[in-house]
């Protein structure tokens, strides 16, 4: 597999704000890649540099080997971008919008593919409705459709599910997954960590314009998160052996950190040995939210997560 997108030491400054401080990142063809980070971390700036909406002060970006500045026409042809803002052209219907967008990419007679996109995004019934009369969720789906009219090998979705209700979100992801299955590279930025966790094979996290984590989703979870064991103690205090694991305590309810599932046995043995009764017990899976929060708080050193 070749490289779909290559960011090479990309830096961008807006006035006194260093939006991107030299980000290097390679995304392989066929990947489903998640780009996470708090607001203002530089996600959208990075996407803008990729899409030609912003120009890096230093560094370069290539899409399937094409430089986005020197070879901008070819690079843009290979790229489909769903912008974050809910924008639309109020003069046109859904179909007109998609036909015009096809024309911009040099494609005529694109109706068969447009119909297929509309079908997959559940927009067929709205094809001839003016953009102004669509709900927010529908406008969002038209944005997705617009990004796909030229069948781009690399698809970028910048917060695509903001304001889209749950049912439609499922439909959207089913479609995007299918495109990924057919070989399209997907780059996703999202605030919904659960979405990133279930969809993305690999995740990069940005903080203040720097990449602070980059790994496969599963290994990121393994490395930085653990299982959380919640106990309600029936009698006696928490044994001294378990205090180092303590995450939080509210009355009789203690939350303990386990590095892995296997440690559960040892914890239970310690409890039994100390004569503690357990009234209730719950084991939580590792999740991306915890990884995210720990990384953003700076609990994990940057060196530890360098690719």
């Amino acid at each position, binding site marked *: 597999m070749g490289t779909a997108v290559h960011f090479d030491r990309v830096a961008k400054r807006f006035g006194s704000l260093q939006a991107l401080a030299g980000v290097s990142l390679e995304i392989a063809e066929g990947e489903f890649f998640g780009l996470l980070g708090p607001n203002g971390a530089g996600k959208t700036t990075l996407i803008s540099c990729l899409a030609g*909406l912003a*120009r890096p002060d230093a560094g370069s970006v290539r899409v399937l080997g094409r430089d986005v500045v020197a070879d901008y026409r070819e690079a843009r042809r290979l*790229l489909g971008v769903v912008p974050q803002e809910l*924008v639309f*052209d109020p*003069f046109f219907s859904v179909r007109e919008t998609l036909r*015009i967008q096809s*024309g*911009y*990419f040099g494609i005529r007679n694109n109706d068969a593919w447009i119909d297929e996109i509309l079908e997959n995004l559940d927009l067929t019934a709205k094809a001839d409705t003016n953009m102004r009369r669509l709900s927010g969720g529908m406008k969002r789906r038209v944005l997705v459709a617009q990004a796909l009219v030229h069948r781009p090998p690399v698809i970028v979705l910048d917060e695509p599910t903001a304001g889209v209700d749950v049912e439609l979100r499922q439909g959207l992801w089913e479609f995007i997954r299918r495109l990924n299955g057919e070989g399209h590279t997907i780059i996703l930025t999202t605030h919904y960590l659960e979405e990133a966790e279930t969809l993305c094979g690999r995740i990069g996290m940005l903080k203040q314009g720097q990449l602070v984590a980059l790994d496969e989703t599963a290994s990121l979870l393994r490395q930085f998160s653990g299982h959380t064991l919640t106990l309600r103690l029936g009698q006696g205090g928490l044994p001294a052996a378990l205090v180092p694991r303590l995450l939080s305590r509210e009355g009789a309810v203690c939350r303990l950190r386990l590095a892995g599932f296997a440690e559960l046995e040892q914890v239970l043995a310690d409890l039994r040995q100390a004569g503690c009764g357990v009234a209730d017990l719950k084991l939580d899976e590792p999740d991306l939210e915890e990884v995210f929060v720990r990384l953003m708080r700076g609990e994990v050193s940057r060196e530890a997560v360098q690719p």
Partner: protein
Amino acid sequence: MMLGFRTLFYKEVLRFWKVGFQTVAAPVLTALLYLLIFAHVLDENTRIHGVTYTAFLVPGLVMMSVLQNAFANSSSSLIQSKVTGSVVFVLLPPIAYGEFFLAYVLAALARGVVVGLGVLLMTLAFAPLQLAHPLWALAFAVLGGAMLGALGMIAGIWADKFDQLAAFQNFLIMPLTMLSGVFYSIHSLPPFWQQVSHFNPVFYMIDGFRYGFFGVSDAAPQQSLLVVSVCFAALTALTLALLKRGYKLRA
């Protein structure tokens, strides 16, 4: 290939055509009101270049409508899409900046010409049409409309808000067009203001366009054509430079 250009041009034309009542009918009515009022007041006593005041006024009004509407089209389209954010739809595709320029300028010219023709048709009821040199008239309409289309692009790219664009329109475009000799021959002005008028490029557009109708003008049509061509070339170069740099369009 150029399909990108053709689609953008088509979309820009469709944009004003869909709201034609506001973008075509309204300016035609405005021009007609000028004609009714000024002709009523001045027609009986005034003859300029050997024709009645009404006949004299018609080409000026037509050209003023071409210019103002060409400017309005490209500038309002750009500022609107910038403010609403839908400008990304034309920034993401592989449209070369030359194609981008041509699409906006030609659509602006199209609106100017449609409005100008509308004004001309309506005025036929008030003054007989003379067209001494139609090709001269056409040349000035096309060059002038295209030049104001380019100026509209510059204004639309530069302005961040609607009120900045309105200032551009009210304090630059309106005075330049109103004081260009639409309503009078500059020979009727005091010498100082005659001199000032010669620094207004719009004067040459109106004067040259009028030459196409009556074969008489304040300045030689060749000179006017040269001035307008040079101004158009300069604005074209400036607009292309802004687009190439992505000034205010690409961060």
